[in-house]
């Protein structure tokens, strides 16, 4: 059986413009057709790692491989169609929902999949297509951003804290939608989150990054039952206690 899309990081280092390293020697292979939560404290290098996978950024050392080939050897726009991305905020373009959803295919002069079908995939009603995006709620906008990414028919979807600006209800609905996509279409999803509860709800696998290094990776169930690494144990424990600096109750 051919496993594709096979995404691997091979001893990846990313330098910081201020000196030092943002990522140091990360070796990793993402499981195909499953949802991997990329977790770690704020500033650990999660967003940087994600941006290497669709070449919004390149590593200073090491390689990123897709199906065994260095991503720098494929045409960059074709790569970005195969590996889609949704950011923390929707960043929709001014205009209607349909115009946004068609953006990717339209930029190549293609019509792309039917807008109604894409909206259905993210649990939005078809009549939303002609609405202007500025009138939508935050949760609806983020779903439109998802549909816009899906219009390229990507094999991998990168999500960088996509629910960070949503209320708890909208967050749960987006989680459900993405889970559905993984189950029904076999999409590979890499979901950055610093919310352990969210990772526990959505992930099949977990990758823990701490201070630019890969601390631990494995099945989500195993990780939450008991992390294998000391860093993993500390991170899990630290999240359950009051945050450092938030002030402890006086004894």
């Amino acid at each position, binding site marked *: 059986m051919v496993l594709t899309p096979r995404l691997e990081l091979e001893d990846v280092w990313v330098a910081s413009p201020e000196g030092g390293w943002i990522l140091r020697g990360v070796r990793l292979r993402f499981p195909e057709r499953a949802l991997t939560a990329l977790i770690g404290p704020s500033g650990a290098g999660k967003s940087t790692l994600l941006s290497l996978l669709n070449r919004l950024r390149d590593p200073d050392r090491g390689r990123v491989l897709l199906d065994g080939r260095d991503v720098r050897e494929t045409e960059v*726009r074709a790569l970005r169609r195969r590996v889609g991305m949704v950011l923390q905020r929707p960043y929709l373009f001014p205009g209607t929902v349909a115009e946004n959803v068609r953006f*990717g295919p339209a930029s190549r002069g293609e019509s792309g999949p039917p807008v109604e079908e894409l909206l259905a995939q993210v649990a939005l009603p078809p009549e939303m297509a002609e609405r202007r995006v500025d009138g939508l709620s935050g949760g609806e906008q983020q779903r439109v951003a998802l549909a*816009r990414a899906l219009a390229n028919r990507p094999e991998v979807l990168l999500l960088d804290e996509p629910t960070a600006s949503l209320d708890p209800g909208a967050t749960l609905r987006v989680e459900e939608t993405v889970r559905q996509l993984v189950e029904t279409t076999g999409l590979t999803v890499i979901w950055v989150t610093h919310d352990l509860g969210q990772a526990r709800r959505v992930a099949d696998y977990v990758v823990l990054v701490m201070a630019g290094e890969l601390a631990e990776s494995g099945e989500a169930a195993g990780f939450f039952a008991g992390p294998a690494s000391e860093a993993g144990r500390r991170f899990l424990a630290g999240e359950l206690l009051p945050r450092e600096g938030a002030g402890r109750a006086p004894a």
Partner: protein
Amino acid sequence: MSFVSVLVTLVFVAVALVVSYTQRLDLERDLVVGAVRALIQLLAMGYVLDVVFRLASWPLIALVLAAMAGVAVQNAGQRGAGLPRRFLPPAVGIVFAEAVTLALLLILRLIPAEARYVIPISGMIMGNSMVASGLVVNRLKAEMRARRGEVLSALALGASPRLAAQIPLRESVRAGMIPTVDALKTVGLVQLPGMMTGLLIAGASPLQAVRYQILVMFMLSTSTGVASMLSGFLAYRQFFNAAEQLVLPAEAAPAGGERGGAAR
């Protein structure tokens, strides 16, 4: 106007000095330096133009135009600090704006091919193109920063840099042209532009002066349009590398203040 009267005009600078001194504005030094520079620069320009007009030699005229263009490009290029090739957008923008506008003026026989027309009119074309080009690049930097999320989202969808930068580019080209468009709307109501004032003082009839002013205002819409568009197109690409990744210039300390606009 005699040279003695020119010296008498220093009385106006003296008044400004008194204001600065009594109000503790601390502008005395700048005022004196500025007045001396203006005196020297303008007198020198006067003598150069006097010679150029009398010799009527085209190589000499071309030399004067080239020197003016050089100063304009140098000046507008400061706005692009942090970009890999910051002088390229104003260089191409200003030179093309000058070439296109001057060619139209001469081909349509709106002005005679004489130094006394070509040089001052070129000064206005290049001065306004310089301001437009600087505005475009400045605005483009701000827009790319402010819309970083939208630009990255578009790139992530497989868009070309050109498409990803579409909104920042459009906004900055607009920013370059807006002063000219606004001037078209208010000219004659708020102020009499410098060129018209000069013509009136030199004894031209108001009807004649107004015709030249109309010519100047309309031609400047071509100049700033061409300069803004070319500067925008040559600047936006510098925000992306060969791998079509967004590369924002490092946030620099704000450069020295911009002085006034160009003459119209």
